[in-house]
């Protein structure tokens, strides 16, 4: 029962080694240099087999789809994944067989759309190692890392199997004597984040909810940014209060218009529910799914080809109309 088990029993995939992180951040190149590159170059250079990665946005909202596809295409293996509100992003990585361990807050499901068969299989059959957390736990683990402290205390997870199957510890508050969960800082090797606007140096603006991306960008050792639009640095200097991520956190910038497709990009385009349904349905049969992936990921050279396959400019026009409620969805 929960009381007999006051701390987590599962592996802690990333140690909260704040001094090692300080050394890393001390030597990280911080020059204001041009970081614009291509998706394939960034993935080849910055993501290595065995790395621990974290994805920005919220599952089907503001996700860096192009980079995720490229990780699958380049056949990255043995990745650790932060499963923070991971839905379609997780589904792509699951399809590619890219991971062998996962911090779970939310995986496998696509919210109201249903469960991903391929993602379920990772845990039910393929033996991917899991450690349980919660959405707040992972958000606050990024925050601890972003602050450079080894843990953040919180009043969640206590008394549950979520705690028992986590790697968290329970501590006593030195001031009040109350029990708290100590959430260890999480420094991902790589964060991949899609934003509305970036300049060539990596300064970023995000419109709408930030989810956990301000902290994630500060917690990760390396940061890959895809952006709807590349804009002049002057736009940041004119409104510095709008900068979500400063350039010195960022390692690569790639301009990817419609880069969150088939996910939603706030104030730009809505999610493509038709395509997401098609994806979930294809997963029901392994052979169908193999063909589906061949068509959309392995058989495409880049993200633009994928967009074309999915309906190109006319589809994107419709998703823009949906986002602004100029058109209404077909009844589902």
């Amino acid at each position, binding site marked *: 029962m929960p*009381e007999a088990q006051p701390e987590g029993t599962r592996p802690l995939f990333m140690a909260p080694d704040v001094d090692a992180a300080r050394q890393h951040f001390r030597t990280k190149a911080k020059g204001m240099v041009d970081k614009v590159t291509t998706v394939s170059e960034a993935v080849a250079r910055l993501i290595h087999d065995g790395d621990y990665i974290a994805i920005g946005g*919220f599952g089907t909202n503001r996700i860096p789809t192009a980079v995720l596809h490229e990780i699958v295409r380049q056949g990255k293996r043995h990745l650790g994944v932060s499963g923070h509100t991971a839905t379609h992003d997780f589904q792509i990585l699951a399809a590619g067989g890219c991971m062998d361990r996962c911090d779970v807050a*939310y*995986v496998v499901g696509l919210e109201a759309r249903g469960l991903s068969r391929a993602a379920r299989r990772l845990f039910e059959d393929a033996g991917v190692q899991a450690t349980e957390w919660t959405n707040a*736990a992972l958000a606050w683990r990024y925050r601890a890392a972003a602050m450079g402290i080894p843990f953040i205390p919180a009043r969640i997870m206590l008394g549950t199997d979520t705690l028992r199957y986590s790697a968290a510890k329970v501590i006593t508050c030195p001031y009040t004597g109350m029990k708290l969960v100590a959430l260890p800082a999480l420094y991902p090797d790589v964060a991949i984040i899609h934003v509305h606007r970036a300049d060539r140096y990596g300064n970023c603006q995000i419109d709408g909810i*930030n989810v*956990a991306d301000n902290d994630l960008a500060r917690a990760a050792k390396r940061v890959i940014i895809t952006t709807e639009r590349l804009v002049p640095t002057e736009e940041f200097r004119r409104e510095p209060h709008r900068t979500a991520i400063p350039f010195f956190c960022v390692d690569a910038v790639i301009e990817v218009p419609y880069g969150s497709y088939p996910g939603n990009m*706030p104030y730009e385009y809505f999610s493509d529910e038709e395509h997401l349904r098609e994806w979930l349905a294809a997963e029901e049969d392994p052979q169908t799914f193999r063909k589906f992936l061949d068509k959309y990921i392995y058989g495409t050279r880049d993200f633009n080809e994928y967009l074309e396959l999915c309906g190109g400019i006319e589809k994107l026009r419709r998703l823009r109309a949906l986002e602004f409620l100029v058109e209404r969805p077909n009844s589902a």
Partner: protein
Amino acid sequence: MAADYNPMELMICLAARYLEDGATVVVGTGAPCAAAMLAQRLYAPNLIIMFEAGGVAPILPTMPISVGDSRTFWRAVMATSMDDIMSFCQKGMVDYTFLGGAQVDMYGNINSTMIGTDYARPRVRLPGSGGANDLGSLCWRTMMITPHDRRRFVERCDFITTPGYLTGPGAREAAGLPPGTGPYKVITNLCVIGFDEETKRMRVESLHPGVTREQVQENTGFELLWAEDLRRSEPPTAEELEVLRREVDPYRYIIGR
């Protein structure tokens, strides 16, 4: 005047009546969101709806598909972060939340992580906590809207993802959870359930029209307690149904289920 309605419509209308004007509520997509939208339109114009991904007090134009999609901060007063929303919950500013799950026990503990007995090899892997554990730990009152059957209402959850009253009176506080928080109402397609003050166990408060005690107990995998003043649930009013069907869910995403 009892109009014609389906069980989902009834559950949404019942849930909406618990949300008072000026209250704060964190909701997900689906029925809870519909209940909050209905309450906002009918009884609680100042209901503060929040979404865990960062949306605060939106004027919801349509039903969101994701708790992080752009509808969740459509004409909102703020688009912020998960840290911010969860901190509002942790500092005591959030009155209600709605949760769901694959299993729930008599203390209102919820499983949304896995079905099976071996964590390393689950029979069915489910999404996990998401924000559920956080919200169920930190919000003052946790509500559920759920179908009522023996597979779901179980003696023991295979995995306790989100804390209800854990093992009974005092257990939440002993574990370190904020005092005064916990499950409040469970609204099913058969009845409305509250929690007994003394034992912290589920206690049926009202039966929906046409539903019997036996039927409820038969569909529950543990022994239920019964309120002394067991009542009939008030069916949806014509006005509730009108607003629900025309404004809240015109495409029948939720009420068509």
